[in-house]
Protein backbone atom coordinates (compact mmCIF):
# COMPACT_ATOMS: atom_id res chain seq x y z
CA UNK A 1 0.00 0.00 0.00
CA UNK A 2 1.22 3.50 -0.83
CA UNK A 3 2.35 5.57 2.12
CA UNK A 4 -0.07 8.40 2.88
CA UNK A 5 1.60 11.70 2.03
CA UNK A 6 -0.70 13.99 4.04
CA UNK A 7 -3.65 14.04 6.35
CA UNK A 8 -6.94 13.61 4.55
CA UNK A 9 -9.28 16.58 4.85
CA UNK A 10 -13.03 16.44 5.16
CA UNK A 11 -13.59 16.21 1.40
CA UNK A 12 -11.14 13.34 1.02
CA UNK A 13 -8.40 15.49 -0.53
CA UNK A 14 -5.06 15.32 1.22
CA UNK A 15 -3.45 18.54 2.42
CA UNK A 16 -0.48 18.13 0.07
CA UNK A 17 -2.78 17.85 -2.95
CA UNK A 18 -4.80 20.84 -1.82
CA UNK A 19 -1.63 22.91 -1.52
CA UNK A 20 -0.59 21.94 -5.04
CA UNK A 21 -4.00 22.89 -6.39
CA UNK A 22 -3.83 26.21 -4.60
CA UNK A 23 -0.57 27.12 -6.35
CA UNK A 24 -2.22 26.64 -9.72
CA UNK A 25 -4.47 29.68 -9.19
CA UNK A 26 -2.96 33.03 -10.22
CA UNK A 27 -4.31 34.97 -7.28
CA UNK A 28 -2.37 32.74 -4.90
CA UNK A 29 1.05 33.51 -6.39
CA UNK A 30 2.91 35.84 -4.03
CA UNK A 31 3.05 39.42 -5.31
CA UNK A 32 6.84 39.40 -4.94
CA UNK A 33 7.09 36.92 -7.83
CA UNK A 34 4.94 39.00 -10.19
CA UNK A 35 6.49 42.47 -9.75
CA UNK A 36 10.12 43.47 -10.37
CA UNK A 37 12.10 43.55 -7.14
CA UNK A 38 12.20 46.81 -5.20
CA UNK A 39 15.60 48.42 -5.64
CA UNK A 40 17.34 51.01 -3.50
CA UNK A 41 18.12 54.43 -5.08
CA UNK A 42 21.83 53.60 -5.40
CA UNK A 43 21.13 50.44 -7.37
CA UNK A 44 22.06 52.02 -10.74
CA UNK A 45 25.56 52.60 -9.41
CA UNK A 46 26.12 48.84 -9.52
CA UNK A 47 24.84 48.36 -13.07
CA UNK A 48 27.01 47.61 -16.11
CA UNK A 49 26.20 50.99 -17.60
CA UNK A 50 27.35 52.72 -14.44
CA UNK A 51 30.63 50.80 -14.65
CA UNK A 52 31.23 52.09 -18.19
CA UNK A 53 30.40 55.70 -17.36
CA UNK A 54 32.43 55.58 -14.16
CA UNK A 55 35.43 54.33 -16.12
CA UNK A 56 35.06 57.15 -18.68
CA UNK A 57 34.70 59.80 -16.02
CA UNK A 58 37.61 58.46 -14.02
CA UNK A 59 39.74 58.40 -17.16
CA UNK A 60 38.92 62.04 -17.94
CA UNK A 61 39.66 63.13 -14.39
CA UNK A 62 43.00 61.31 -14.31
CA UNK A 63 43.85 62.66 -17.76
CA UNK A 64 43.04 66.24 -16.76
CA UNK A 65 45.03 65.85 -13.56
CA UNK A 66 48.05 64.37 -15.40
CA UNK A 67 47.84 67.08 -18.08
CA UNK A 68 47.78 69.91 -15.58
CA UNK A 69 50.57 68.34 -13.51
CA UNK A 70 53.06 67.38 -16.24
CA UNK A 71 53.87 69.77 -19.04
CA UNK A 72 54.41 67.11 -21.73
CA UNK A 73 50.89 65.66 -21.45
CA UNK A 74 47.94 67.31 -23.18
CA UNK A 75 44.77 67.93 -21.17
CA UNK A 76 41.27 66.94 -22.33
CA UNK A 77 40.10 70.57 -22.12
CA UNK A 78 43.13 71.77 -24.03
CA UNK A 79 42.54 69.13 -26.68
CA UNK A 80 38.91 70.18 -27.10
CA UNK A 81 39.96 73.81 -27.37
CA UNK A 82 42.51 72.85 -30.02
CA UNK A 83 39.90 70.93 -32.01
CA UNK A 84 37.54 73.92 -31.89
CA UNK A 85 40.28 76.12 -33.35
CA UNK A 86 41.16 73.51 -35.96
CA UNK A 87 37.48 73.33 -36.97
CA UNK A 88 37.39 77.12 -37.21
CA UNK A 89 40.44 77.05 -39.51
CA UNK A 90 38.54 74.58 -41.76
CA UNK A 91 41.29 71.99 -41.44
CA UNK A 92 39.18 69.20 -39.95
CA UNK A 93 36.65 68.75 -42.77
CA UNK A 94 39.24 69.28 -45.52
CA UNK A 95 41.70 66.69 -44.23
CA UNK A 96 39.10 64.19 -43.06
CA UNK A 97 37.48 64.42 -46.50
CA UNK A 98 40.77 63.69 -48.25
CA UNK A 99 41.63 60.75 -45.97
CA UNK A 100 38.15 59.28 -46.28
CA UNK A 101 38.31 59.57 -50.07
CA UNK A 102 41.57 57.57 -50.08
CA UNK A 103 40.24 55.00 -47.61
CA UNK A 104 37.00 54.48 -49.53
CA UNK A 105 38.81 53.92 -52.85
CA UNK A 106 41.36 51.63 -51.19
CA UNK A 107 38.81 49.59 -49.23
CA UNK A 108 36.54 49.20 -52.28
CA UNK A 109 39.47 47.63 -54.08
CA UNK A 110 40.16 45.49 -50.99
CA UNK A 111 36.56 44.26 -51.05
CA UNK A 112 36.67 43.20 -54.70
CA UNK A 113 40.18 41.73 -54.61
CA UNK A 114 39.83 40.07 -51.19
CA UNK A 115 36.63 38.22 -52.05
CA UNK A 116 37.78 37.22 -55.54
CA UNK A 117 41.16 35.92 -54.34
CA UNK A 118 39.63 34.18 -51.30
CA UNK A 119 37.10 32.31 -53.43
CA UNK A 120 39.69 31.45 -56.06
CA UNK A 121 42.02 30.03 -53.39
CA UNK A 122 39.25 27.84 -52.01
CA UNK A 123 38.09 26.74 -55.45
CA UNK A 124 41.41 25.90 -57.15
CA UNK A 125 44.20 24.31 -55.12
CA UNK A 126 46.86 25.54 -57.57
CA UNK A 127 45.81 29.14 -56.91
CA UNK A 128 45.87 28.39 -53.17
CA UNK A 129 49.43 27.10 -53.18
CA UNK A 130 50.56 29.81 -55.60
CA UNK A 131 49.26 32.60 -53.36
CA UNK A 132 49.79 31.21 -49.83
CA UNK A 133 53.27 32.68 -49.39
CA UNK A 134 52.33 36.02 -50.95
CA UNK A 135 49.40 36.35 -48.53
CA UNK A 136 51.76 35.49 -45.67
CA UNK A 137 54.10 38.30 -46.79
CA UNK A 138 51.14 40.69 -46.95
CA UNK A 139 50.07 39.82 -43.43
CA UNK A 140 53.50 39.86 -41.80
CA UNK A 141 55.28 42.77 -43.56
CA UNK A 142 54.61 45.82 -41.35
CA UNK A 143 52.58 48.61 -42.94
CA UNK A 144 55.24 51.24 -42.21
CA UNK A 145 57.71 49.45 -44.50
CA UNK A 146 55.14 49.69 -47.28
CA UNK A 147 54.47 53.29 -46.32
CA UNK A 148 58.13 54.27 -46.69
CA UNK A 149 58.43 52.33 -49.94
CA UNK A 150 55.47 54.06 -51.61
CA UNK A 151 56.71 57.46 -50.48
CA UNK A 152 60.01 56.71 -52.20
CA UNK A 153 58.23 55.43 -55.31
CA UNK A 154 55.47 57.96 -55.81
CA UNK A 155 56.11 60.87 -53.46
CA UNK A 156 53.12 62.96 -52.39
CA UNK A 157 50.12 61.53 -54.22
CA UNK A 158 46.90 59.60 -53.73
CA UNK A 159 48.44 56.45 -55.20
CA UNK A 160 50.68 55.83 -52.19
CA UNK A 161 48.04 55.72 -49.43
CA UNK A 162 45.63 53.75 -51.61
CA UNK A 163 48.28 51.18 -52.52
CA UNK A 164 49.34 50.57 -48.93
CA UNK A 165 45.69 50.34 -47.89
CA UNK A 166 45.17 47.60 -50.50
CA UNK A 167 48.33 45.58 -49.79
CA UNK A 168 47.96 45.61 -46.02
CA UNK A 169 44.16 45.10 -45.77
CA UNK A 170 43.49 42.65 -48.62
CA UNK A 171 45.20 39.65 -46.95
CA UNK A 172 42.88 39.97 -43.94
CA UNK A 173 39.82 39.68 -46.14
CA UNK A 174 41.37 36.93 -48.26
CA UNK A 175 42.02 34.74 -45.24
CA UNK A 176 38.46 35.14 -43.92
CA UNK A 177 36.83 34.68 -47.31
CA UNK A 178 38.92 31.56 -47.88
CA UNK A 179 37.76 30.13 -44.56
CA UNK A 180 34.16 30.95 -45.43
CA UNK A 181 34.42 29.37 -48.87
CA UNK A 182 35.85 26.13 -47.49
CA UNK A 183 33.20 26.08 -44.75
CA UNK A 184 30.29 25.88 -47.24
CA UNK A 185 28.40 22.83 -46.01
CA UNK A 186 29.16 19.88 -48.29
CA UNK A 187 25.88 18.20 -47.40
CA UNK A 188 23.89 21.16 -48.72
CA UNK A 189 25.97 21.16 -51.91
CA UNK A 190 25.24 17.43 -52.35
CA UNK A 191 21.53 18.12 -51.79
CA UNK A 192 21.64 20.85 -54.45
CA UNK A 193 23.33 18.48 -56.89
CA UNK A 194 20.77 15.76 -56.21
CA UNK A 195 17.97 18.22 -57.07
CA UNK A 196 19.89 19.47 -60.15
CA UNK A 197 19.89 23.05 -58.86
CA UNK A 198 21.75 25.24 -61.38
CA UNK A 199 25.26 26.53 -60.62
CA UNK A 200 24.17 30.17 -60.56
CA UNK A 201 21.37 29.58 -58.08
CA UNK A 202 23.63 27.40 -55.91
CA UNK A 203 26.12 30.23 -55.82
CA UNK A 204 23.58 32.95 -55.02
CA UNK A 205 21.43 31.01 -52.55
CA UNK A 206 23.95 28.70 -50.91
CA UNK A 207 27.62 29.55 -51.40
CA UNK A 208 27.50 33.35 -50.97
CA UNK A 209 25.14 33.38 -47.94
CA UNK A 210 27.18 30.70 -46.18
CA UNK A 211 30.26 32.92 -46.62
CA UNK A 212 28.67 36.26 -45.75
CA UNK A 213 29.46 36.16 -42.04
CA UNK A 214 33.10 35.37 -42.73
CA UNK A 215 33.32 38.13 -45.34
CA UNK A 216 31.75 40.68 -42.97
CA UNK A 217 34.15 39.73 -40.16
CA UNK A 218 37.11 39.85 -42.56
CA UNK A 219 36.08 43.24 -43.92
CA UNK A 220 35.78 44.58 -40.40
CA UNK A 221 39.43 43.85 -39.66
CA UNK A 222 40.38 44.94 -43.19
CA UNK A 223 38.82 48.36 -42.51
CA UNK A 224 40.91 48.75 -39.37
CA UNK A 225 44.11 47.75 -41.16
CA UNK A 226 43.32 49.82 -44.27
CA UNK A 227 42.46 52.99 -42.34
CA UNK A 228 45.63 52.65 -40.30
CA UNK A 229 47.65 52.22 -43.49
CA UNK A 230 46.23 55.37 -45.10
CA UNK A 231 47.05 57.41 -42.00
CA UNK A 232 50.55 55.97 -41.81
CA UNK A 233 51.41 56.92 -45.40
CA UNK A 234 49.96 60.39 -44.86
CA UNK A 235 52.15 60.73 -41.79
CA UNK A 236 55.35 59.68 -43.52
CA UNK A 237 54.97 61.44 -46.83
CA UNK A 238 51.97 63.49 -47.79
CA UNK A 239 50.82 67.08 -47.77
CA UNK A 240 47.14 66.42 -47.09
CA UNK A 241 45.00 64.20 -44.90
CA UNK A 242 44.46 63.35 -41.25
CA UNK A 243 47.85 61.64 -40.87
CA UNK A 244 49.66 64.60 -42.45
CA UNK A 245 47.92 67.04 -40.11
CA UNK A 246 48.87 64.98 -37.04
CA UNK A 247 52.50 64.99 -38.27
CA UNK A 248 52.27 68.76 -38.81
CA UNK A 249 51.42 69.31 -35.15
CA UNK A 250 54.07 66.79 -34.14
CA UNK A 251 56.64 68.95 -35.90
CA UNK A 252 55.20 71.99 -34.11
CA UNK A 253 55.62 70.19 -30.75
CA UNK A 254 51.92 70.59 -29.97
CA UNK A 255 50.74 67.82 -27.67
CA UNK A 256 47.16 69.02 -27.92
CA UNK A 257 47.45 68.91 -31.71
CA UNK A 258 48.63 65.29 -31.73
CA UNK A 259 45.99 64.22 -29.27
CA UNK A 260 43.23 66.14 -31.08
CA UNK A 261 43.91 64.44 -34.40
CA UNK A 262 44.24 61.11 -32.61
CA UNK A 263 40.72 61.65 -31.34
CA UNK A 264 39.47 62.44 -34.84
CA UNK A 265 40.96 59.17 -36.16
CA UNK A 266 39.34 57.23 -33.35
CA UNK A 267 35.91 58.80 -33.81
CA UNK A 268 35.89 58.08 -37.54
CA UNK A 269 36.77 54.40 -37.18
CA UNK A 270 34.35 53.91 -34.26
CA UNK A 271 31.53 55.62 -36.13
CA UNK A 272 32.07 53.46 -39.20
CA UNK A 273 32.26 50.30 -37.13
CA UNK A 274 29.14 51.04 -35.09
CA UNK A 275 26.98 52.62 -37.79
CA UNK A 276 27.91 50.58 -40.87
CA UNK A 277 29.65 47.33 -39.95
CA UNK A 278 27.45 46.49 -36.96
CA UNK A 279 24.36 46.72 -39.15
CA UNK A 280 25.90 44.73 -41.98
CA UNK A 281 26.95 41.94 -39.62
CA UNK A 282 23.55 41.95 -37.91
CA UNK A 283 21.78 41.79 -41.26
CA UNK A 284 23.65 38.67 -42.29
CA UNK A 285 23.07 37.06 -38.92
CA UNK A 286 19.35 37.82 -38.79
CA UNK A 287 18.32 34.25 -39.61
CA UNK A 288 20.32 32.99 -36.63
CA UNK A 289 18.83 35.56 -34.29
CA UNK A 290 15.35 34.55 -35.51
CA UNK A 291 16.10 30.96 -34.57
CA UNK A 292 17.41 31.91 -31.17
CA UNK A 293 14.36 34.00 -30.35
CA UNK A 294 12.16 31.05 -31.08
CA UNK A 295 14.06 28.65 -28.86
CA UNK A 296 14.29 31.10 -25.99
Amino acid sequence: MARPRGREGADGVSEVQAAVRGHGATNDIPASLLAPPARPWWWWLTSDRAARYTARLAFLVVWQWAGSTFQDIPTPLGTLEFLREEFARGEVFRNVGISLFRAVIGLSLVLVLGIAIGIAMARWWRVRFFLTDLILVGITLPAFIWALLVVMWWGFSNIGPITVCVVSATPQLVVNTFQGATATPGKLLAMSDAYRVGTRRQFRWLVIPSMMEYIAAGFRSAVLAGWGAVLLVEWFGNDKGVGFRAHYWYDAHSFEGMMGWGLVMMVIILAFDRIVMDRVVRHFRSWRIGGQQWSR
Partner: protein
Amino acid sequence: MARLVARDVKKVFPPTRQGQDPVFALRDVSFQAEGHTFVTLVGPSGCGKSTFLNMVSGIDTPSAGTLEVFGRTEGDAKIGYVFQDPRLLPWKTVLDNMVYVLDEGSTDEREARGRRFLDLVNLGSTADMYPGQLSGGMQQRVGIARALSIEPDLLLMDEPFSHLDAITARDLRVELQRLWLDTASTILFVTHDVLEAVLLSSRVLMMSSRGVIFRDLTIDLPFPRRQTDKEVAIHQAEILELFEEMERPKVDA
Protein backbone atom coordinates in the same frame (compact mmCIF):
# COMPACT_ATOMS: atom_id res chain seq x y z
CA MET B 1 6.42 6.52 -61.82
CA ALA B 2 9.84 5.35 -62.78
CA ARG B 3 11.70 2.27 -63.86
CA LEU B 4 14.97 1.66 -62.04
CA VAL B 5 17.38 -0.89 -63.46
CA ALA B 6 20.55 -1.80 -61.56
CA ARG B 7 22.90 -4.32 -63.19
CA ASP B 8 25.97 -5.64 -61.38
CA VAL B 9 26.51 -2.32 -59.63
CA LYS B 10 29.79 -2.18 -57.73
CA LYS B 11 31.35 0.60 -55.70
CA VAL B 12 34.94 0.65 -54.51
CA PHE B 13 36.52 3.45 -52.50
CA PRO B 14 40.23 3.40 -53.43
CA PRO B 15 42.87 3.52 -50.69
CA THR B 16 44.05 7.02 -49.85
CA ARG B 17 47.39 5.96 -48.36
CA GLN B 18 50.08 3.36 -48.99
CA GLY B 19 49.37 0.09 -47.21
CA GLN B 20 45.62 0.73 -47.00
CA ASP B 21 43.10 -1.67 -48.56
CA PRO B 22 40.36 -0.49 -50.90
CA VAL B 23 36.87 -0.48 -49.38
CA PHE B 24 34.23 -2.49 -51.25
CA ALA B 25 31.03 -0.62 -50.37
CA LEU B 26 28.91 -2.54 -52.86
CA ARG B 27 30.02 -5.83 -54.36
CA ASP B 28 27.22 -6.73 -56.72
CA VAL B 29 23.77 -5.19 -56.71
CA SER B 30 21.24 -6.10 -59.39
CA PHE B 31 17.49 -5.52 -59.32
CA GLN B 32 14.66 -3.81 -61.17
CA ALA B 33 11.82 -1.74 -59.74
CA GLU B 34 8.98 -0.33 -61.74
CA GLY B 35 5.67 1.49 -61.31
CA HIS B 36 3.83 2.57 -58.18
CA THR B 37 5.90 0.54 -55.80
CA PHE B 38 7.63 1.08 -52.46
CA VAL B 39 10.97 -0.72 -52.40
CA THR B 40 13.09 -0.78 -49.27
CA LEU B 41 16.75 -1.66 -48.94
CA VAL B 42 17.24 -2.97 -45.44
CA GLY B 43 20.52 -3.99 -43.90
CA PRO B 44 23.06 -3.28 -41.18
CA SER B 45 24.92 0.02 -40.98
CA GLY B 46 27.79 0.29 -43.43
CA CYS B 47 26.40 -2.22 -45.95
CA GLY B 48 26.36 0.38 -48.73
CA LYS B 49 22.68 1.34 -48.72
CA SER B 50 23.27 5.09 -48.65
CA THR B 51 26.08 4.80 -51.19
CA PHE B 52 23.62 3.10 -53.52
CA LEU B 53 21.07 5.91 -53.11
CA ASN B 54 23.74 8.53 -53.78
CA MET B 55 24.61 6.75 -57.02
CA VAL B 56 20.96 6.59 -58.09
CA SER B 57 20.61 10.33 -57.39
CA GLY B 58 23.72 11.15 -59.39
CA ILE B 59 25.74 12.57 -56.48
CA ASP B 60 28.09 9.58 -56.83
CA THR B 61 28.96 7.22 -59.70
CA PRO B 62 29.28 3.41 -59.70
CA SER B 63 32.77 1.91 -60.06
CA ALA B 64 31.34 -0.79 -62.36
CA GLY B 65 27.97 -1.94 -63.64
CA THR B 66 25.05 0.11 -64.96
CA LEU B 67 22.40 2.07 -63.18
CA GLU B 68 19.50 3.49 -65.18
CA VAL B 69 16.42 5.44 -64.18
CA PHE B 70 13.64 6.00 -66.71
CA GLY B 71 10.94 8.57 -66.01
CA ARG B 72 7.41 8.99 -67.33
CA THR B 73 8.67 11.19 -70.13
CA GLU B 74 11.70 11.39 -72.38
CA GLY B 75 14.85 12.86 -70.92
CA ASP B 76 16.16 12.77 -67.36
CA ALA B 77 13.90 11.18 -64.77
CA LYS B 78 12.91 13.51 -61.94
CA ILE B 79 14.44 12.29 -58.71
CA GLY B 80 13.51 13.59 -55.26
CA TYR B 81 15.77 12.88 -52.31
CA VAL B 82 14.91 12.92 -48.60
CA PHE B 83 18.09 12.71 -46.56
CA GLN B 84 18.77 11.46 -43.04
CA ASP B 85 19.04 15.07 -41.89
CA PRO B 86 16.66 17.67 -43.37
CA ARG B 87 19.39 19.58 -45.30
CA LEU B 88 17.53 22.90 -45.47
CA LEU B 89 19.29 26.21 -46.14
CA PRO B 90 19.23 27.74 -42.64
CA TRP B 91 19.35 31.36 -43.90
CA LYS B 92 16.34 30.93 -46.18
CA THR B 93 12.72 30.71 -45.12
CA VAL B 94 10.85 27.45 -45.37
CA LEU B 95 9.09 28.64 -48.54
CA ASP B 96 12.38 29.76 -50.12
CA ASN B 97 13.77 26.32 -49.36
CA MET B 98 10.90 24.84 -51.35
CA VAL B 99 11.40 27.30 -54.22
CA TYR B 100 15.15 26.57 -54.28
CA VAL B 101 14.71 23.15 -55.94
CA LEU B 102 11.93 24.19 -58.36
CA ASP B 103 12.98 25.46 -61.75
CA GLU B 104 9.83 25.53 -63.84
CA GLY B 105 7.56 28.56 -64.10
CA SER B 106 7.67 32.11 -62.78
CA THR B 107 8.57 33.01 -59.20
CA ASP B 108 4.88 33.31 -58.33
CA GLU B 109 4.11 29.91 -59.78
CA ARG B 110 7.00 28.30 -57.95
CA GLU B 111 5.94 29.90 -54.66
CA ALA B 112 2.36 28.73 -55.15
CA ARG B 113 3.63 25.23 -55.81
CA GLY B 114 5.85 25.38 -52.73
CA ARG B 115 2.91 26.46 -50.58
CA ARG B 116 0.68 23.71 -51.99
CA PHE B 117 3.16 21.01 -51.00
CA LEU B 118 3.77 22.57 -47.59
CA ASP B 119 0.00 22.37 -47.07
CA LEU B 120 0.17 18.71 -48.04
CA VAL B 121 2.38 17.99 -45.01
CA ASN B 122 0.33 20.41 -42.86
CA LEU B 123 3.09 23.01 -42.61
CA GLY B 124 1.50 25.80 -44.68
CA SER B 125 1.64 28.13 -41.69
CA THR B 126 5.43 27.86 -41.39
CA ALA B 127 6.17 29.18 -44.90
CA ASP B 128 7.75 32.42 -43.66
CA MET B 129 9.70 30.91 -40.76
CA TYR B 130 13.33 29.92 -40.79
CA PRO B 131 14.20 26.20 -40.49
CA GLY B 132 15.85 26.88 -37.11
CA GLN B 133 12.44 27.87 -35.76
CA LEU B 134 10.98 24.43 -36.50
CA SER B 135 11.32 21.18 -34.56
CA GLY B 136 13.35 18.31 -36.02
CA GLY B 137 10.20 16.48 -37.12
CA MET B 138 8.80 19.58 -38.81
CA GLN B 139 12.08 20.17 -40.62
CA GLN B 140 12.05 16.60 -41.88
CA ARG B 141 8.48 17.09 -43.14
CA VAL B 142 9.66 20.17 -45.04
CA GLY B 143 12.34 17.92 -46.54
CA ILE B 144 9.62 15.46 -47.61
CA ALA B 145 7.43 18.27 -49.01
CA ARG B 146 10.44 19.59 -50.94
CA ALA B 147 11.07 16.15 -52.45
CA LEU B 148 7.40 15.72 -53.40
CA SER B 149 7.11 19.25 -54.85
CA ILE B 150 9.19 18.37 -57.91
CA GLU B 151 6.64 15.57 -58.53
CA PRO B 152 9.41 13.01 -58.75
CA ASP B 153 9.29 9.90 -60.89
CA LEU B 154 11.51 8.31 -58.28
CA LEU B 155 11.67 9.32 -54.63
CA LEU B 156 14.79 8.34 -52.70
CA MET B 157 14.61 8.26 -48.90
CA ASP B 158 17.71 7.64 -46.78
CA GLU B 159 16.68 6.68 -43.24
CA PRO B 160 14.57 9.85 -43.05
CA PHE B 161 13.14 9.10 -39.60
CA SER B 162 16.22 7.72 -37.85
CA HIS B 163 17.10 11.04 -36.16
CA LEU B 164 13.59 11.59 -34.79
CA ASP B 165 12.00 10.53 -31.53
CA ALA B 166 9.85 7.38 -31.61
CA ILE B 167 6.46 9.14 -31.50
CA THR B 168 7.28 11.66 -34.24
CA ALA B 169 8.78 8.90 -36.38
CA ARG B 170 5.64 6.78 -35.98
CA ASP B 171 3.38 9.67 -37.03
CA LEU B 172 5.54 10.44 -40.04
CA ARG B 173 5.47 6.80 -41.17
CA VAL B 174 1.68 6.96 -41.19
CA GLU B 175 1.83 10.25 -43.10
CA LEU B 176 4.33 8.85 -45.60
CA GLN B 177 2.00 5.93 -46.43
CA ARG B 178 -0.81 8.41 -47.09
CA LEU B 179 1.39 10.58 -49.30
CA TRP B 180 2.71 7.63 -51.27
CA LEU B 181 -0.80 6.25 -51.88
CA ASP B 182 -1.83 9.71 -53.19
CA THR B 183 1.14 10.14 -55.54
CA ALA B 184 2.33 8.14 -58.48
CA SER B 185 5.94 7.95 -57.34
CA THR B 186 8.21 4.97 -57.16
CA ILE B 187 9.92 5.06 -53.78
CA LEU B 188 13.32 3.63 -52.98
CA PHE B 189 13.69 3.68 -49.21
CA VAL B 190 16.73 2.81 -47.11
CA THR B 191 16.62 1.78 -43.45
CA HIS B 192 18.25 -0.49 -40.91
CA ASP B 193 14.95 -0.77 -39.03
CA VAL B 194 13.19 -4.00 -40.06
CA LEU B 195 9.83 -2.93 -38.57
CA GLU B 196 9.92 0.28 -40.61
CA ALA B 197 10.72 -1.71 -43.74
CA VAL B 198 7.78 -4.08 -43.23
CA LEU B 199 5.41 -1.27 -42.33
CA LEU B 200 6.04 0.85 -45.41
CA SER B 201 7.18 -1.39 -48.24
CA SER B 202 5.61 -3.47 -50.91
CA ARG B 203 9.01 -5.05 -51.50
CA VAL B 204 12.00 -5.51 -49.22
CA LEU B 205 15.54 -6.09 -50.49
CA MET B 206 17.74 -7.48 -47.73
CA MET B 207 21.39 -6.49 -47.87
CA SER B 208 24.25 -8.15 -46.06
CA SER B 209 27.19 -6.31 -44.54
CA ARG B 210 29.25 -7.55 -47.51
CA GLY B 211 27.33 -5.19 -49.81
CA VAL B 212 25.16 -7.72 -51.69
CA ILE B 213 21.39 -8.25 -51.86
CA PHE B 214 20.73 -11.72 -50.49
CA ARG B 215 16.91 -11.77 -50.36
CA ASP B 216 14.14 -10.11 -52.35
CA LEU B 217 10.81 -10.32 -50.46
CA THR B 218 7.31 -9.14 -51.34
CA ILE B 219 5.26 -7.83 -48.41
CA ASP B 220 1.73 -8.62 -49.45
CA LEU B 221 -0.30 -6.71 -46.84
CA PRO B 222 -2.97 -4.06 -47.48
CA PHE B 223 -2.17 -0.33 -47.02
CA PRO B 224 -2.34 1.69 -44.84
CA ARG B 225 -0.57 -0.48 -42.28
CA ARG B 226 -0.18 0.13 -38.58
CA GLN B 227 2.74 -0.68 -36.34
CA THR B 228 0.41 -2.71 -34.11
CA ASP B 229 -0.86 -4.98 -36.92
CA LYS B 230 -0.17 -8.63 -36.12
CA GLU B 231 0.83 -9.43 -39.70
CA VAL B 232 3.43 -6.68 -39.59
CA ALA B 233 4.97 -8.22 -36.47
CA ILE B 234 5.04 -11.68 -38.08
CA HIS B 235 6.82 -10.39 -41.20
CA GLN B 236 9.23 -8.47 -39.01
CA ALA B 237 10.11 -11.65 -37.10
CA GLU B 238 10.60 -13.59 -40.32
CA ILE B 239 12.98 -11.02 -41.74
CA LEU B 240 14.97 -10.82 -38.51
CA GLU B 241 15.25 -14.61 -38.63
CA LEU B 242 16.60 -14.43 -42.17
CA PHE B 243 19.23 -11.92 -41.04
CA GLU B 244 20.26 -14.22 -38.19
CA GLU B 245 20.48 -17.15 -40.56
CA MET B 246 22.65 -15.15 -42.93
CA GLU B 247 25.00 -14.14 -40.14
CA ARG B 248 25.15 -17.57 -38.45
CA PRO B 249 28.10 -19.13 -40.33
CA LYS B 250 30.18 -16.05 -39.54
CA VAL B 251 29.37 -16.28 -35.83
CA ASP B 252 30.24 -19.99 -35.70
CA ALA B 253 33.53 -19.54 -37.54
